[in-house]
């Protein structure tokens, strides 16, 4: 047995158990671990409890593919590209019919909940949420599951009077404790040191909070080379358990310095996912009928992949047009 953390996507995703609490890194349509998520769907994972802060196409796909029973997120969507139709459909159908429950949070409280998890604390105080229906006890979508499903805190929030200073009421939010954290990185050392560029979002905190962290990366680099510039590194190797080399592993989301969002993907997916049938056909064609990420990339095609490549200084591709109704074919 080698002690190498390097493995294939199939091997890495094999470590993930049905029913676990799974965090996906990145931010909406930026640096999402899409290749690992496609593999989760291929392996037919079930009953997952998803955490994202915030979620993008990866959550819409997993929810649509029937892999999910719970989501806790501040947002699930594709930004200005269009709406998350699978997520929307399941929520509108209702948990009685789908068995799927979604709970709404906010960017700040999601971040604090991960920070609490990263620090080994059971909860964190916040001054946010007051006045909002997010803490309306009559509107807690997880109410019937609390105290029964061990993946969820026994209540959504709690309140205390500040015992130290002015005595104001403060809201407490429960720690997030993901079993697994999935991150897609620009670079990872062969031992697991992660270098994220163009924004780490909550990925460091989630890796610290999680029991198992799997990192896919655009490229694997010698650990020694990462020690040349330690201040540019984001996550230490000691909390990374599996590494997958996966160029274009966040496609169709954007990876700073590597590639931009793929507007053609979003146009295609959004058109297909408007109806459940179309979503199913899309999923079969682009995920289930393919063996792995290499086949997926081959199907996207070199021309399109090259057309997404980012300017190394700007970090994005200034030629990419982001308005879907005026998109032209790649030529």
């Amino acid at each position, binding site marked *: 047995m080698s002690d190498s953390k390097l493995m294939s996507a199939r091997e890495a995703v094999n470590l993930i158990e049905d029913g676990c609490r799974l965090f996906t890194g990145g*931010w909406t349509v930026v640096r999402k671990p899409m290749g690992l998520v496609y593999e989760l769907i291929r392996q037919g994972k079930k009953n997952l409890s998803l955490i994202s802060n915030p979620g993008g196409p990866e959550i819409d796909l997993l929810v649509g593919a029937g892999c999910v029973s719970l989501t806790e997120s501040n947002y699930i969507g594709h930004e200005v590209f269009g709406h998350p139709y699978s997520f929307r459909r399941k929520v509108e159908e209702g948990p009685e019919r789908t068995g799927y429950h979604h709970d709404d949070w906010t960017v700040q409280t999601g971040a604090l909940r991960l920070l609490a998890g990263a620090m080994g604390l059971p909860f964190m105080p916040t001054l946010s949420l007051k006045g909002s229906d997010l803490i309306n006890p009559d509107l807690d979508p997880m109410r019937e599951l609390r105290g029964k499903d061990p993946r969820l805190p026994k209540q959504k929030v709690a309140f205390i009077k500040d015992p130290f200073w002015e005595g104001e009421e403060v809201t407490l939010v429960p720690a997030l404790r993901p079993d697994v954290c999935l991150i897609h990185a620009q670079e990872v050392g062969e031992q697991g040191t992660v270098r994220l560029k163009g924004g*780490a979002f909550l990925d460091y905190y989630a890796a610290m909070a999680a029991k198992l962290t799997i990192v896919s990366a655009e490229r694997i680099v010698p650990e020694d080379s990462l020690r040349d510039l330690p201040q540019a590194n984001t996550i230490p190797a000691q909390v990374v358990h599996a590494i997958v080399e996966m160029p274009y592993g966040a496609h169709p989301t954007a990876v700073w310095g590597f590639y931009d969002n793929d507007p053609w993907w979003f146009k295609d997916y959004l058109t297909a996912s408007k109806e459940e049938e179309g979503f199913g056909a899309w999923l079969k064609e682009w995920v289930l009928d393919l063996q792995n990420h290499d086949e997926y990339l081959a199907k996207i095609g070199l021309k399109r992949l090259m057309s997404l490549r980012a300017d190394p200084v700007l970090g994005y591709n200034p030629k990419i047009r982001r308005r879907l109704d005026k998109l032209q074919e790649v030529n």
Partner: protein
Amino acid sequence: MGLINPAPVVGGNAEKAPCSSLERMVVAASRLLQNGQMVLVGTGLPLVGATLAKHVHAPKMTVVMEAVAFDSKPFALPFCVADARGVYRTPWMPTAVEVMGQFLQNRRIDVGFLGGAQVDKYGNLNSTCMGSYLHPEKRFEGSGGACDIAVLSGKTIIIMVHEKRRFVEQVDYITSPGWKCRDHRTGRLVDRRELGMWGGPSAVVSTMGVMKFDPESHEMYVDEYFADLGVTLGAMKENTGFDIRIDGARPAPPPKAEELEVLRTVVDPEGIFMKY
């Protein structure tokens, strides 16, 4: 004037084209932002308005986005708060722990700039769902950071297309609290200050005009209307889902040629948000 970086015209929009109501809204909203302010900007139209203000009259405003971009001077329009376009030449890259847990919660944000699907007469915002929350008719993407920004900013500015179904007596779900919002202990609507909250909405900018809130009743009223677009106060009443006060409303100063030109050629030349 502070043109940060000229960008090529992509859309080929005639500079003399009449101002659209979307453009009019963004120009009016951008004018509410000032040099010296630290502004936390939500995704979508607020990004367009803040970028326009930064280019035209408020180059020394600090634009903060909840994901990562801090004091950003984008060369091209970021279309979300995590977009590399917003990160380019940003002097510092925080996470949401710093931006939302520290800058915002520690009262360092002067203005929160938000959009949404519904707003009510007390400035409560809904970006979560239409109909009942537990069994919605239409589900949206959710709060993002909007709730945090509405609770914790020094004040908030709201930008939203003016339609009867969007300007309602009471929002279906309070994602982001305004002046009279939910008391979690009783379920009733109470003045936000009774909940120990500061801030509150200061203006709502729509495709028809600029609304403000009565200092006593905290109900929304029309402060300015876009007479230059042919908007009348009668039409505003008709397109508002609650009885809105219009006495004392004035025609808003029309957009300047420079504002429209910068919006069309520099800020959103693709028409991603302005839909040319």
